[in-house]
């Protein structure tokens, strides 16, 4: 079953009061997210990720196109009791304490007091906020607010969560905890839809990704399909490299770096290095290491976005 589907979703924002102008923030977006997967929406600043989430949450209304969540239109009241949402910058009532905030949202979900209490305590523990639970939110650091924000997302035990930059403001430990939390959610059958800039995290977590640029979808699919596995470059580290060999390397490699006595050479393909190998041995150089490099999401992302920018 598709848990999220958008068809031709488009959003124009109005600017100015006197001289009206419009800017397209999202342009005919078609997306589908399947039950139980971790879906990552990535794209440079201003690409339209947050706009997509706000449209899905019914906070802003589409200029054209439509979206469904769990097979229902986004404005169906039934939808909200089954989803969790972490806004980009979590703004909460800052006069409430962390614990009060969770209870407050629990009330809005219509949870009974014992259930609220049990869930709030479990979640405070899970996000590592038990100790600061009785301080008002206005005294929280950014990362602490983010943690409470994540806890409130899960108060109703949602089937589907939307996280807008869940890692922002978290320290390395927090990021790792977040990663394992997302995995844990997936194991318990929750579908996770998130936006992020931190591509290694996306790569480590997501089953599928969609790349957005200037409001347009430039690519979407399984990570294994998007990242071209046939392009396998190798990174080689050499020692005692003579001048003529260095020149030969520069000619057939994509990147050459000298670090002290060592030379780091990147070849687009393993075969390029194979051809150079006899010259290396002849020149009296030593091979320290040969590492195959799989294409990273980050490189792919940068390349795709640049290409989209050119055309």
């Amino acid at each position, binding site marked *: 079953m598709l848990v999220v589907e958008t068809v031709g979703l488009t959003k124009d924002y109005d600017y100015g009061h006197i001289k009206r102008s419009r800017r397209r923030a999202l342009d005919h977006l078609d997306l589908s997210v399947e039950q139980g997967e971790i879906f990552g929406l990535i794209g440079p600043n201003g690409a339209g990720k947050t706009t997509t989430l*706000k449209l899905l949450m*019914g906070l*802003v209304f589409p200029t054209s196109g439509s979206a469904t969540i769990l097979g229902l239109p986004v404005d169906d009241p039934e939808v*909200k009791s089954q989803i969790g*949402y972490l*806004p980009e910058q*979590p703004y909460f009532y800052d006069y409430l304490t962390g614990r009060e905030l969770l209870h407050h*949202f629990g009330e*809005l979900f*219509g949870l009974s007091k014992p259930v609220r209490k049990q869930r709030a305590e479990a979640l405070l523990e899970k996000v590592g906020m038990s100790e600061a639970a009785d301080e008002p939110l206005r005294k929280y650091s950014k990362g602490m607010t983010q943690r409470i924000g994540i806890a409130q997302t899960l108060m109703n035990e949602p089937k589907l969560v939307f996280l807008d930059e869940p890692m922002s403001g978290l320290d390395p430990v927090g990021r790792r905890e977040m990663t394992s939390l997302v995995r844990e959610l997936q194991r318990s059958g929750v579908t996770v839809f998130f936006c992020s800039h931190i591509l290694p995290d996306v790569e480590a977590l997501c089953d599928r990704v969609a790349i957005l640029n200037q409001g347009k979808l430039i690519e979407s699919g399984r990570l294994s399909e998007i990242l071209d596995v046939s392009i396998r470059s190798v990174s080689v580290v050499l020692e005692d490299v003579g001048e003529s060999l260095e020149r030969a390397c520069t000619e057939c490699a994509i990147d050459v770096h000298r670090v002290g006595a060592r030379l780091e050479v990147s070849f687009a393909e393993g075969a390029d290095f194979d051809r150079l190998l006899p010259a290396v041995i002849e020149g009296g150089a030593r091979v320290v290491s040969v590492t195959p490099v799989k294409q990273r999401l980050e490189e792919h992302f940068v390349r795709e976005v640049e290409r989209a920018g050119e055309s």
Partner: protein
Amino acid sequence: MRTTAYVALNTYRETVRDKVLYNLLLFALLMISSSYVLGKISVYQEIKIIKDLGLASISIFGMVIAIFIGIGLVSKEIDKRTLYSVLTKPVSRTQFLVGKYLGLCLTLFVNVCVMTLGLYLVLLVMAEPLDPMLLVAIFLIYMKLTVLVAVAILFSTFTTSILAGLFTGFIYVAGYFSADLKNFHTIVDSGIVPILTKGLYYLLPNFRNFDVKSAVVAGLPIEATQVGWAVLYAILYIVLLLVASTWIFQRRNLK
């Protein structure tokens, strides 16, 4: 229903955390009790002055509380974006708005009660009979305030807090003169002016409908039908304002 009630209760709790509210209340009580001093100075009419000033204080401070807190309730949540996490819970925009409205009415009710107690306390100290007709006047003041809160809510669904405050203040003043608009064409009778003033007359709330202060202070009888009509008028007006507010708010992009 449960959600609306919860939002209302929460709004009430939020407003009573507001320090501005206590300052205003303190000020109102000071003013009411100062009427005691004023009453002492003027020899003959002391009771009249106390009642006059007391009722005026309740009306004015109620108005200030309604505007200052009323406009903040919705526009502050839009500005601070605390709304995002509320409206993505099972809370409809209508429930949110009506809950906010009812919550503020509750806050005002408690405040008006406190001010009323203050007024009666002064009368008690003066060893005066506790005129129950004052309650009728205060009740109608409260009805007026509930209309005003609905006006504040309406404006804050589509404009910034500052503008909403200005507009609501304007409506409050205009609401006292709207009755004059009805007969405005006898003064200026040309072109579209009469149409405009007639239109405004029917559009603006008529706050004089709720004003029985001078009659009560003068000890004149108040007819039950007059109170009944005023209540009916208030309810009708509030429903219309809330329907309009919801209509606007449901279409608003929360950017």
